[in-house]
């Protein structure tokens, strides 16, 4: 039997070497495994870092801080707390053990953990680790204006929707609000409570940041882009006249103007200005047909469609706006695939985010230049020294300054005497555009208001979008936009 026993030994030797080889393989894969969510080694290493704080624009309101937790073995862990709770939940995000990170907590993680490192800081932190000194992260000072943020969240309360306010001159994000919201502390403590949140929409999806990733149909707010295309190409002027029969024929089918009563609503002979003021679908439909889908889409692209807005949030939380097909953005090679009439008034499978529409009005407000949206203004070291400052950057040049001026005048009339009168502010001229996108189901409209103010020297650009509405944008969304603008301009009562 000895030959068999000898062979057996060699079989075992082979099997045991295979075990060692497998363990070695995992070691070789370690760098890739370390980055995976749920790897406790990684999570714990980060828990031992005292993360930097996250502040509002004023530099004093703390949006995310740490709570010390002494472990029984003498180590200290830092657990994240969010004193403002649901108010800034989507922009700030959360950093937890069990569910990883979102929002600025994720995108600014390297700064917050102090690992935005050059060689000397790497050596420092390694020495600190060896000596058991707690590593402290850098602080993030956001651009969020707490008054505007509060006005936005208050206005959205009870609805499903989102609001974004920008400083059109710098791209600074003054408010980034999504409703329903959640308390980030609960993500770790009681996730079930978040799952039980209800809202007048299905699913309530409180964790979804509707401001940057909500899928809305732009409806009539898209007419701003169509009008921009019409004016900027030089093909039309604000005074160009159109004949409105009350409908527009598309592929033999009539598209009628919006009407509360369901009867044909014809305006007769109108100018482009009047058509925008009263949001006349048939005029824009015919305008779109004359411009062609290619031109309209080109202008959408100039305002930032088909490009991910470079806001400092994780890219999976920022949706690209544009035409969608099978859940993905889709840019037709042949513009004739797209119905130019429906495109012109914001239907035709267009999906946009409130952030994108805020960037559109901000571009109009800023003489046609769209600034990069910026949620972080500076990073400071634990001792308060500024580590890095983020200046304004131009993102897109959408239209000529003259076109922007013409559009501003037209949009001012929308608020003065058109569909957006609910956004009027005494002493301030507001330029805006309403939107009511019908989804075909009663009570499921997407309603919008996009605006900027003051019209002559813009300081704030706003987009408010609501889903599952039965009213119009002028009634439901415009008052919220007004509150936000007032909060920014310091006229909050």
């Amino acid at each position, binding site marked *: 039997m000895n030959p*068999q026993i000898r062979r057996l*030994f060699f079989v075992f030797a082979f099997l045991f070497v295979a075990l*060692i080889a497998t363990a070695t393989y*995992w070691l070789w894969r370690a760098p890739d*495994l370390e980055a995976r969510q749920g*790897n406790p080694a990684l999570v714990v290493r980060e828990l031992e870092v005292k993360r930097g704080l996250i502040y509002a624009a004023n530099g004093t309101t703390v949006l995310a801080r740490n709570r010390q*937790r002494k472990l029984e*073995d003498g180590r200290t862990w830092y657990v994240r707390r969010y004193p403002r709770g649901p108010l800034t939940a989507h922009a700030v995000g959360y950093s937890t053990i069990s569910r990883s990170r979102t929002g600025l907590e994720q995108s600014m993680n390297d700064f917050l953990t102090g690992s935005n490192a050059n060689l000397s800081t790497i050596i420092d932190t390694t020495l600190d680790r060896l000596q058991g000194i707690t590593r402290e992260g850098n602080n993030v000072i956001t651009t969020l204006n707490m008054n505007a943020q509060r006005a936005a969240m208050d206005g959205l309360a009870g609805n499903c929707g989102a609001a974004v306010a920008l400083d059109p001159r710098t791209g600074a994000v003054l408010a980034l609000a999504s409703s329903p919201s959640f308390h980030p502390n609960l993500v770790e403590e009681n996730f079930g409570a978040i799952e039980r949140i209800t809202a007048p929409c299905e699913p309530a999806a409180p964790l979804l940041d509707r401001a940057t990733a909500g899928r809305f149909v732009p409806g009539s707010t898209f007419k701003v882009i169509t009008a921009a295309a019409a004016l900027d190409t030089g093909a039309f002027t604000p005074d160009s006249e159109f004949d409105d029969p009350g409908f527009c024929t598309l592929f033999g089918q009539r598209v009628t103007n919006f009407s509360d009563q369901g009867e044909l609503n014809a305006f007769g002979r109108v100018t482009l200005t009047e058509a925008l003021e009263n949001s006349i679908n048939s005029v824009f439909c015919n305008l779109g047909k004359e411009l062609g889908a290619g031109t309209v889409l080109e202008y959408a692209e100039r305002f930032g469609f088909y490009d991910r807005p470079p806001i400092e949030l994780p890219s999976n939380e920022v949706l690209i706006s544009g035409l969608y097909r099978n859940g993905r953005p889709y840019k037709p090679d042949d513009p004739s695939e797209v119905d130019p009439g429906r495109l012109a008034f914001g239907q035709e499978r267009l999906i946009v985010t409130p952030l994108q529409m805020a960037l559109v009005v901000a571009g109009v407000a800023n003489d046609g230049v769209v600034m990069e949206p910026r949620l972080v203004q500076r990073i400071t070291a634990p001792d308060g020294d500024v580590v890095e400052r983020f200046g304004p950057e131009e993102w897109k040049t959408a239209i000529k300054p003259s076109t922007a001026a013409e559009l501003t005048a037209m949009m001012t009339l929308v608020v003065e005497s058109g569909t957006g009168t609910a956004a009027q502010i005494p002493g301030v001229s507001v330029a805006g555009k309403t939107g009511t996108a019908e989804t075909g189901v009663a009570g499921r409209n997407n309603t919008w208001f996009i605006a900027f103010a003051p019209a002559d020297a813009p300081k704030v650009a706003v987009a408010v979008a609501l889903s599952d509405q039965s009213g119009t944008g002028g009634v439901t969304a415009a008052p919220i936009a007004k509150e936000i603008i007032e909060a920014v301009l310091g006229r909050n009562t």
Partner: protein
Amino acid sequence: MSLRTRELLNLVLVGLLTAAGFASVYIARQDVVSAGSLTYALFFVSLFVVAHILLRVRLPDADPYLLPLGGLLCAIGLTEIYRIDPDLAFRQGLWVVVGVLAFAAVVLFLRDYRKLDNVKYILGISAIGLLVLPALPGIGRTINGATLWVDIGPIVFQPGELAKVLIVIFLAGYLRDNREMLSYGAGGGRLPSPKHLGPLLLIWGGAMLVLFQTRDLGGALLYFAIFLVMLYTATARWSFVAVGMGLFLAGAVALYQVIPHVQDRVQGWLDPWSDPQGDTYQLVQSIYAIASGGVFGSGLGNGVLLTPEGNPYIPFLETDFIFSAIAQELGLAGAAALILLYLLFAFRGFRVAMLADDGFSKLLASGLTAAVAIQAFIIIGGVVGLIPLTGITLPFVSYGGSSIVANFIVLALLLMVSDRVNRGERR
């Protein structure tokens, strides 16, 4: 230098390593563990010295490496368990005491292990009896989907561990008697007659049936492999191994269809990241632990094994997944060393078998050695993702009384065979 003196020097070495291990855990976790627990190491070493003295008296010619190897494996396990939970380590220490007592009892009362051959059928049937125990209502207990435990009053134990030893003894005796017939078949035919194969298949088949019934997949795999290995050793017929493997694969496919638990395990093995929060959680966490250890490990007590509440990230860390914990804290170097210890154990065990001059001794020693090696391979292979994961203890290392006691009995039997072999040689 006499064999026993060599053994004592080896044990001193093991003792020093144990002391170093405990000391390093103490330094890393002094907020949790008390200085008094350092005496565990001293206590542990003295236990093995007692076993050594017993060998000096009763088995002076036994192999001088097997006891220190068992001791070192035990020490590694105890140190890691101590690091995970000092209270568990205390209990494991008590089990080692029981193990050494069982070891002593076997050495003292079983004067001639070859007499076991006379009672092999009783042992075979008792093995099945032991395996059935957990399935009995009232005393059986199911943990993690498998019914392997027996709960009588103060003691919970896994009879399967002891049954393993009895089955090996049965197979050794039975195969010795029938190996000629099995090897060449009755009357020159290819197939052994039912008369010779029958009892074998009956006892072995009964064991397998019970194991499948109790969902002890690791145990089933172990018994199957022991059976094939011993059959091959006795007959040198590869065809048996091939047929056995075929049967096993057929059985595995059938089980795969019937038991969802098995499907989860196989799918988790094929793609560990298919459900890292659910079915494959343990495997994925085990891989993370192994990968994060690096070449030299985090050091004892410095690995990320426990949540802030002090619970292990991997359930069954101190039993099935102890290898992952060791790999993280002692690194690839430590893990490879541990695996090589099993290889050394196999080397010494098979050496005893090869030197033995009678069939029963050869089969017994090689069977017992193979059982330890196969068991180590099944569980380490499972936690590193080389083979589908089935829960089974790592011999001498995992926390668990039944496992420790059974392996000490294995050790005692191996040393008895070895002593007899070497004494014959000396004469």
